[in-house]
């Protein structure tokens, strides 16, 4: 089995990210949050022998359909294994702030399983074994925060009113990574 990951962002500034930043800073009072970015992640598992073949098939899917991304609206990158990604996809660590990735996946991933079904039944991609869809949030948090990682973890999960936002734990799983860990695919099973 070989996995690829397609990361998709809006080509234009993302209003969802602005909404989240506004909510976290103005409503939740998390003023140490400096930047929010949102990326969609599609993890595709193929029954193929080589990563080159998996990447080629993933790129063909992106070229010929709008199932994962729409070229009129989105930009994307494909990876298969550890490695750097275009910096525009991430909040980065800086001197004043540290960056985290919060990956949110529905416990029952209906979006991903529907996409897999479409790939197999309508697009004839018999080698697709599974698709997992996640929303990957990038958070840049000021180092002035008492515990930036703890703040990222609080933001990740909505437990009580105005305590967290990105995932409802009753149907979603949220995992917090440092950016380097995510890029090293420690976050990708």
């Amino acid at each position, binding site marked *: 089995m070989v996995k690829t990951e397609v990361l998709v962002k809006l080509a234009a500034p993302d209003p*969802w990210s602005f909404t*989240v930043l506004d909510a976290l800073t103005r409503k939740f009072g998390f003023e140490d949050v400096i930047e929010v970015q949102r990326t969609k992640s599609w993890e595709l598992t193929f029954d193929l022998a080589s990563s080159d073949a998996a990447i080629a098939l993933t790129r063909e899917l992106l070229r010929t359909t709008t199932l994962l991304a729409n070229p009129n609206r989105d930009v994307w990158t494909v990876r298969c294994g550890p490695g750097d990604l275009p910096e525009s996809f991430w909040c980065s660590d800086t001197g004043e702030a540290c960056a985290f990735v919060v990956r949110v996946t529905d416990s029952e991933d*209906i*979006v991903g399983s529907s996409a897999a079904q479409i790939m197999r039944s309508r697009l004839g991609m018999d080698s697709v074994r599974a698709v997992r869809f996640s929303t990957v949030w990038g958070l840049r948090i000021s180092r002035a925060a008492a515990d930036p990682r703890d703040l990222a973890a609080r933001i990740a999960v909505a437990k009580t*009113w*105005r305590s967290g936002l990105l995932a409802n734990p*009753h149907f979603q799983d949220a995992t917090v990574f440092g950016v380097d860990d995510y890029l090293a695919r420690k976050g990708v099973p």
Partner: protein
Amino acid sequence: MNPRIGIIQFPGVNCEYETARALESVGMSASILRWNVAPAMIPDFDGFVLPGGFSYEDRVRAGAVAASDDVMETLMAAAADGKPILGICNGAQVLIESGLVPGLTGGRIDLALAPNKGMGRDGYYSNWVYVKVGPDPGRSFAAYGLKEGDILPVPIAHSQGRFTSAESGLFDTLEAESQIVLKYCKADGSAPGAFPDDPNGSERSAAAICNASGNVVAMMPHPERSTWLRQVPADIDSVWAARRNAGLASRAALEGEGPGAGIFRSMRAYIERKP
């Protein structure tokens, strides 16, 4: 004096005007308030409705961003005062995401309205469905004037309407405490089974859930879209369709009450029975 209801218009909702008309049709007065009105400027309403739509474009999660708005503090205070608060569809999602429903553990978010499942695909589903009034209808304001077992045809239109919880035993508690106000059912009132009678895979087929005091109700169906007989489809299997079809010759008859009006009548009766 008629009960006065405030309708909160979050950015992106789209059912506020028909909700106001539905409230007025049963003798209540309705005022639409923008979500960012200063709390001090909010009149002393007898109750509130959070209408359907797509607050904040469902960004992050349906209802999640609106649930953190300042106006929710006013609603929380009203809920604590025992005033009825009805969340319809997106309004229900806001109430769930704020923890007001089921409100069992002091501000904790105990439930979710997760994406529909059971359709064989992801996404939005819109149709007429049947719901049945649960036991002890006087338990909540939304069924206050209805009878246990009443079957109401009502429209739904949502992609995230599946009541669920990771809390073990929570739905046993909700069932035991009669907090599941409405359940999806077949036309004859029997258990819905699979899609489409069960439109979204909700735990216990829940279509509406109330808080412990019964004065805050999160309801996924749209009663404001079934308030008049003229809104009822001709071809559904229900006495309501028969009434609608019998009234076709008369405009006045079609303006008669539809199944959803009972929810708003219940709200009015609940307010008026309070000392």
